[in-house]
C-alpha cells in the first residue's frame, strides 16, 4: 500500500494550498508548466536524499566496525577486524602492540608507539647515537687498514718495485692498470692514515 494513497493529495494540501481552499481541487488542473515545476522540485529533493541517505548509512557501517571496547582490543578474536576498521596508519601500530593489555595500550600509545609501528624506545638518545657512530667509524677504519695490508706485497715496496722505466717499457694496458692500482693504493693509504 502506498503511504500516500493519492500522490496528488500532496499537491492539494501543501504544494497548492491556495488552489484547494475547500480541499476539492484536483491536480489534473495543474498546467503543464506547473507539472514541470513540480517534477523539477521533486527531482531536486530526490537528489538531496540520494546523496544524504547513503552518507548517513555509511556512518552506520563505520560505527559498526569501530564498535569495540578497550577490553575487546586485547582479544585475538577482534584483531583482524581492527586491521580493516581502523585508519591505515594507526592500524599498523595497533597490530604491533596487540599483545599488550588494553590499559597499557591506551596509556602508553602516544609516548611509546609511533604511527609506523616502531617503538619510541627504539629511538637512540644523543649519547647512544654518538657511540654508535664512533663504533661504526672504527669498524670502517679497521676494514680499510686490513684492505691496505692485503694489497701490500710481502717484502716489496710498491713504489720501489715499479720504476718510471718499467712503466715506459710496458704496454698501454699495463700502464693503465698500474695507474689504477696506484690510485687505489693511495686512496687506501689515505684512509689508513686517517684511521691511524
Amino acid at each position, binding site marked *: 500500500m*502506498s503511504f500516500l494513497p493519492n500522490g496528488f493529495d*500532496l499537491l492539494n494540501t*501543501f504544494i497548492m494550498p491556495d488552489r484547494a481552499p475547500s480541499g476539492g481541487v484536483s491536480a489534473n488542473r495543474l498546467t503543464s508548466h506547473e507539472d514541470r515545476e513540480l517534477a523539477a522540485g521533486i527531482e531536486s*529533493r530526490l537528489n*538531496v536524499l540520494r546523496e*544524504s541517505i547513503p552518507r548517513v548509512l555509511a*556512518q552506520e557501517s*563505520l560505527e559498526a566496525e569501530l564498535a569495540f571496547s578497550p577490553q575487546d582490543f586485547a582479544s585475538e578474536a577482534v584483531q583482524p577486524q581492527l586491521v580493516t576498521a581502523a585508519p591505515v596508519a594507526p592500524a599498523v601500530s595497533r597490530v604491533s602492540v596487540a599483545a599488550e593489555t588494553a590499559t597499557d595500550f591506551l596509556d602508553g600509545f602516544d609516548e611509546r608507539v609511533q604511527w609506523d609501528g616502531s617503538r619510541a624506545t627504539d629511538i637512540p638518545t644523543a649519547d647512544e647515537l654518538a657511540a654508535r657512530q664512533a663504533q661504526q667509524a672504527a669498524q670502517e677504519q679497521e676494514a680499510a687498514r686490513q684492505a691496505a695490508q692485503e694489497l701490500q706485497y710481502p717484502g716489496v715496496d710498491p713504489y720501489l718495485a715499479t720504476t718510471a722505466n718499467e712503466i715506459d717499457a710496458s704496454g698501454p694496458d699495463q700502464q693503465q692498470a698500474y695507474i689504477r692500482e696506484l690510485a687505489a693504493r693511495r686512496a687506501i693509504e689515505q684512509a689508513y692514515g686517517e684511521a691511524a
Partner: protein
Amino acid sequence: MNLFAQLLHPQQAADNRKAEIYKSLIHWEAQVGGQLFGPVPKGTRREFFCLDENTWVWHEEWTDEAGQRQAVTTRYDVRPNGIVKSQGSSDYQTMSKEESQNFFNAIRMYQQRVVPELERMQANASAK
C-alpha cells in the same frame, strides 16, 4: 506575490515558485518522517526530515504538565568522521550507541517511505 508582480518580474516569480515547491516538499517529508517513530501523542507536533545532504532535523512541540508549550529542535550533522547533534544553542554532542541505532533505523524507514512516494509523484507529474 500577486498577479501584477508576477507579470512584472517573471524570473523572480519563477524562483519564488520553485522555493515554495521545495519548501512544501520538505514540509510534507517532515510530517511523514514524524510518523516513523510511532503514534504522535495528541497535542504533540513531531517532525523529522532531511534538511540538506549533511543535515537531518528532529523537531517536537508539546504541552507540559504546567500547560506550557515546549519545543525542542535537534539537528544531526553528518560529518566524515561521525554524526554529531546539537539542540538549540548547546554545543555539539556525540550520540549514544542506542540513539545512533535509532537514528539509522529512522533514516532507513524514511528512505523506504519517502523516496518511493516522491518517485511516484514525479512520474505522475512528468507523464502529463
